[in-house]
């Protein structure tokens, strides 16, 4: 059993993100503590996905500073902590020509994990029967479950969820909820973004809004 780490997992100070010369996010100042679940609500195009990519270290701030899991954003330090970040994005991240089981085995090997855990993860997410299906033969919900299985194996310290509940049945939503619980119980932090504030209110310990690239308190 892992001990709960004490401290801050995310620190942003006046951070801004620019893509293609256009400022998408500005003036982001935020801290997220260990074991916290932060919800970010906002309409389409408000910068939610870019915000998550910033926290995932996949985009660097063009101004301000930021630290995620102790690594300074925009520096080579991020390579050290990327394995500790789990991201469920808009589009399921799977290799299209592989089966669901092969996708999990591939990710587990690259991660340096034990492929023996793949079968257990498939069982937990209810994909044992469908594991030999290719991605193109699988439903959106199955691909989401595959991603959930991958995160069960990689056990991220920072879980980032981008509209992760959209289009999922109740069982699959419960799986995502279990991932959130497991992450926080292990001392990790969760940041989830959604245009549906209802999804966030039930799960997050704190909810902020994002509008025109700025974070705001929810009234």
């Amino acid at each position, binding site marked *: 059993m892992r001990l709960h780490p004490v401290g801050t997992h995310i620190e942003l100070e006046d951070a801004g993100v620019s893509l293609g010369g256009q400022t998408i996010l500005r003036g982001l100042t935020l801290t997220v503590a260990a074991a916290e679940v932060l919800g970010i609500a906002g309409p389409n195009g408000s910068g939610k996905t870019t915000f998550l*990519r910033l926290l*995932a*270290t*996949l*985009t*660097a701030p063009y101004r301000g500073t930021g630290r995620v899991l102790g690594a300074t954003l925009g520096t*080579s330090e991020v*390579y050290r902590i*990327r*394995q500790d*970040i*789990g*991201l469920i*994005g808009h*589009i*399921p*991240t799977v*290799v299209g*020509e*592989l089966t669901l089981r*092969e996708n999990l085995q*591939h*990710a587990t*090997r*690259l*991660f*340096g994990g034990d492929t023996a855990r793949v079968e257990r993860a498939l069982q937990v997410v209810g994909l044992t029967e469908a594991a030999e299906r290719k991605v193109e033969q699988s439903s959106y919900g199955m691909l989401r479950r595959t991603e959930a299985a991958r995160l069960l194996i*990689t056990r991220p310290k920072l879980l980032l969820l981008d509209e992760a509940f959209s289009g999922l049945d109740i069982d699959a939503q419960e799986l995502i909820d279990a991932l959130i619980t497991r992450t926080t119980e292990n001392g990790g932090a969760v940041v989830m973004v959604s245009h549906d504030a209802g999804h966030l209110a039930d799960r997050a310990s704190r909810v902020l809004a994002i509008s025109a690239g700025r974070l705001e308190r929810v009234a």
Partner: protein
Amino acid sequence: MTFWDQAVEIARVDLRVERRVGDVLRIILPFAVIALLVFPLALGVDLSAITQLGPAVFWAIGVLFGMQVALRQAADDRPERRDLYSLLGVDPAARFVGRSMSGSVLMLAFMVVLLAATFVLYSPRLPSGWPGPVILALLLTAVGLTELGTLAGEVTAGLRSRTALASLIVAPLAIPLVIGGSQTLESLTRDTSILPWLLLLIATDLALAVAGVALARPLEEASR
């Protein structure tokens, strides 16, 4: 997982995907063989001209279609997959090496089959003992072209029209490989030393490998 473990895993999955999709062996290779057929048809019954032209046509078709093989992965490389690899802790340099490994295997297979087709269609005259040096030249050319294609794919990642741009990068930089490969065959037929041409191929392969590994991280970050 070590750097080499990651590279081998990426190469293994790339080859599995190719076995299922079959871009190289089911699509690019048959077109290349058809292109080989065009020259004898155009030359009519001049058998001596056909025999003499064989090696030159092989290299021309091999490099032109080989570029398609080399750039195949760049066309398939989606941003989501790159992000996934990043968050799994894959070293960008290991990704470059893995893709170069799988691409080299495919490219070598492509060139060997194309060479066999050249023998059937052109009956080129080569001295005894040619298979060893020719296979070595093919291997070195295959590795170089694949490294070049992978590097061009990384340079153009995230850009619109990346396939066209990547081709523009590959074409001029492939010249040392074309010269090295074709002159190895030419030197064999003239019975002169092939060593300078093999050294040219080796030097080009090494230079591309060093560039690909050294630039992997900055190129990955720049592509986002």
